[in-house]
């Protein structure tokens, strides 16, 4: 370490630009803050010795210097900003219609641009490795840049002395010389105190300072950002975060996914309420909307806890935990879990009743059978001795290139292939027919019997997100620290005023990190009646 001893006697670390104690510019280091040929001193970090400005030999030095540069930090932020903006031009993959294939969707919908977008990974930008990398680089940059500045700045501000070197005074932005022998230093001191400055004195020199704590604002807010980023990383620890989804039909009791078999939910009722079209207040808007506007989505539920040991296949013993309602904006909370009203499906088929009758006589009957769509049986024996075997079951039936397929496992548009065996002919060839909602096809064209729908029963299904999230407190803590930091740094400013007696009067200088107008106003107020002339702002912008 090549220490630098100032003429005031203070020993400064290598790389110091302005003496920590008296502020005298260290001749050889002025280039570090860009002070050469400048009439005014660059007061950034009070000219303290920053590692990044001092060492540039080893690889570590170079990495450190790279990340501690605000220029680099700003570039990282700007690149992230531009990437994010591009990421909003087309919908992200998670917002494209469910079931569509991203690899073709973008090309089909948006042409060549869509294709390029997809190829470059913008369709999934925010979980792409390079977006994560950008955030990580910003994080690293924040940490290194803050350490590089905070420690020397802290030491310098602690070491500063009231009596400043002439060079330091003269090269402040706010500076004035008063030549007079009737100067009331005592009044000046009182005035400064009245303006809530902390005033110290050395050899007749005054040093007034306020709001030094605001200088720590940026570092506090950066810590908040880091805590926040780390909090989001915790998401990847499985024990801390559960994100599941459960569909529950009305009347059904179901294990809540993600709770390891511990909790069950019963859907008592799902309620969808729309706004009254005759409500005078909203009539016009509802008309413009052209369809009903929903007012409430709500699940009336009962939460149960399983009390016996979990054994596969054994029916659980359940104890009621609570009755609760899940509404949008009002999730159900129990233990560490939260259930959100996230989705619903109205009028899903519950049971369908069919009857077997002669092909050409709707009124004849060989008996009825009812299919429970959650749990269909494989065969139904009718009173007449006929047996109907469920050849295939399509819960949500669609024709795909002429082939019947099911697009989901939810009974939203059920269809069946029935094999009908007349009494006593269970070894023979069955009659095949196809039945669905509004469809009934005779498999061979010469069937004797027909399976006709006589009745059905529907119910609502509610979709709830299941969340357990131990990372939220960290994320909230990060946000809170960030807010404290920005407010601390933005709503207070670090102001300093130096007054130094000279043979035939005084010199006065002032500095603030922001808000020069207020500093000037306070200096003007403080000098009133003291005989000290109001100093000038040496940095008027050139017109």
């Amino acid at each position, binding site marked *: 370490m090549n220490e630098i001893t100032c003429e005031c006697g203070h020993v400064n670390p290598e790389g110091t630009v302005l003496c920590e104690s008296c502020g005298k510019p260290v001749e050889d280091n002025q280039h570090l803050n860009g002070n050469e040929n400048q009439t005014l001193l660059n007061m950034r970090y009070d000219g303290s010795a920053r590692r990044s400005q001092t060492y540039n030999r080893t690889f570590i030095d170079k990495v450190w210097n790279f990340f501690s540069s*605000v220029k680099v930090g*700003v570039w990282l932020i700007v690149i992230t900003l531009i990437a*994010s903006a591009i990421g909003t031009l087309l919908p992200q993959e*998670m917002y494209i219609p469910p079931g569509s294939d991203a690899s073709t969707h973008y090309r089909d919908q948006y042409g060549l641009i869509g294709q390029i977008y997809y190829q470059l990974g913008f369709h999934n930008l925010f979980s792409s490795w390079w977006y994560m990398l950008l955030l990580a680089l910003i994080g690293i940059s924040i940490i290194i840049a803050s350490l590089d500045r905070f420690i020397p700045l802290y030491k310098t501000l602690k070491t500063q002395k009231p009596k400043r070197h002439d060079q330091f005074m003269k090269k402040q932005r706010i500076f004035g010389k008063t030549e007079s022998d009737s100067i009331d230093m005592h009044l000046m001191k009182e005035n400064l105190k009245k303006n809530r400055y902390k005033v110290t004195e050395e050899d007749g020199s005054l040093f007034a300072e306020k709001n030094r704590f605001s200088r720590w604002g940026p570092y506090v807010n950066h810590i908040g950002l880091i805590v926040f980023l780390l909090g989001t990383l915790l998401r990847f620890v499985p024990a801390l975060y559960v994100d599941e989804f459960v569909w529950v039909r009305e009347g059904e009791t179901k294990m809540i996914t993600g709770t390891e078999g511990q909790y069950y939910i019963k859907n008592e009722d799902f309620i969808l309420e729309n706004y009254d079209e005759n409500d005078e*207040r909203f009539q*016009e*808007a509802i008309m413009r909307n052209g369809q009903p506007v929903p007012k409430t989505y709500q699940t009336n539920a009962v939460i149960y806890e399983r009390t016996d040991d979990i054994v596969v296949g054994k029916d659980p013993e359940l104890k009621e935990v609570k009755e609760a309602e899940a509404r949008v904006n009002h999730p159900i909370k129990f233990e560490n879990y939260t259930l959100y009203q996230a989705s619903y499906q109205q009028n899903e088929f519950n049971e369908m009743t069919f009857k077997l009758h002669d092909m050409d006589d709707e009124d004849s009957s060989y008996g009825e059978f009812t299919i429970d769509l959650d749990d269909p049986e494989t065969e139904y024996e009718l009173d007449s001795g006929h047996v109907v075997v469920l050849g295939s079951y399509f819960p949500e039936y669609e024709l795909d290139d002429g082939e019947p397929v099911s697009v989901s496992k939810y009974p939203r548009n059920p269809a069946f292939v029935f094999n009908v065996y007349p009494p006593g002919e269970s070894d023979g060839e069955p009659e095949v027919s196809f039945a669905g909602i509004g469809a009934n096809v005779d498999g061979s064209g010469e069937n004797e019997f027909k399976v006709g729908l006589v009745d059905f029963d529907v119910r609502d299904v509610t979709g709830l997100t299941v969340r357990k999230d131990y990372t939220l407190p960290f994320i909230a803590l990060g946000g809170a620290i*960030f807010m404290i930091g*920005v407010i601390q740094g933005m709503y207070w400013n670090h102001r300093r005023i130096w007054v130094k007696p000279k043979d035939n009067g005084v010199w006065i200088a002032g500095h603030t990190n922001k808000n020069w*107008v207020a500093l000037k106003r306070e200096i003007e107020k403080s000098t009133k009646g003291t005989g000290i002339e109001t100093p000038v702002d040496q940095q008027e912008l050139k017109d």
Partner: protein
Amino acid sequence: MGDLSAISSNLLYAAFVIYLVATFFFAGAIRDKKTTSPDRVGKIGIILSIVGFLTQLGYFFTRWGAAGHAPVSNLFEFITFFGMMLVFAFIIMYFIYRINVLGVIALPVALLIIAFASMFPTEISPLVPSLQSHWLYIHVTTAALGQAILSISFVAGLIFLIRQVDQNKKTKQTFWLEFVIYMVATTLAFIIISSVFSAFNYEASFEAPVEGQPVEITYEMPAIAGPFEGELISDGAMSPLFQAPEWMRGVDAAIKFNTMIWSILGGLVLYWLVRLVLRKRIGSALQPLLRKANPEIVDEVGYRAVAIGFPIFTLGALIFAMIWAQQAWDRFWGWDPKEVWALITFFFYAAYLHLRLSRGWQGTKSAWLAVGGFAIIMFNLLAVNLIISGLHSYA
């Protein structure tokens, strides 16, 4: 009920007029002429601004009473609220710095925004379930206040640029300054054209295929660009000059495209009319009016506005938004376009603050950055809603 919402509209109208009058007072206050006491005129300006603001608050609360929820739930309400917050932000900055010139730009910007808002459907709309939360008020009001204060930096930036950009020769800076002025003209053109056609109840209906189904699409301005493969079915309406491109799907896409064409053309006409009358760049014609503005102070006002607005914006548009999203949508962040643009705004002003830390970014460069920031705020307010729209498409 009906009475309350009628009172509410009248209050908004009154506020608009008062702001307009206040603008003239501020304009009078910055004239170079040695009138009796120029600052008296400025004082009347600020008093009128406050009266106008209180009147608009009256609009806000009466409408709240009529609707049963805070009027920040559709585009009209939100943009109007933003205009009101802009006036509020201006009043705050006025009392910190006491410069009249701020009012000469800030109030017209607010006027333009409020008039613009009124072009959207103004009826009271019911709240869908995800909006039924106190966080709606908390989040939207703080976010709008933050944006409004940040926008004051744009106002200051614009003053700075009009005052400082060298108008003796044509440069990139004069070009972009004219472009900003042209954008103002476009907004004004949009307001004028919409108002005129809606006063005449102009309608032109088309039948056009939307996702394979024939749908009736009704334009409220003559169709320069008709819907793709649309057929005009109204009598006496102008037939379109060309069709909107095929990729503009959805019922509204072609209508919005057509409105945009009208605004861009109208803006060009307005801009060039004024420019031909003045016989010089509009920026150059405005420059002498702002001679009295002290660029040093204007620059500081711009920076200060960011310093004050940034924490409020972060709190409202990011933190409160996250708390609410966690409650309503089970995730505090979902990379929805509106959310991403709030984050982009945050990044942008963070970059601004870091750049200000270094020498050389004061003055002109800062002023341009402030213009860019305002463009981002407007983009989030309008483009994201009208073009990109995601979950937040209501406001």
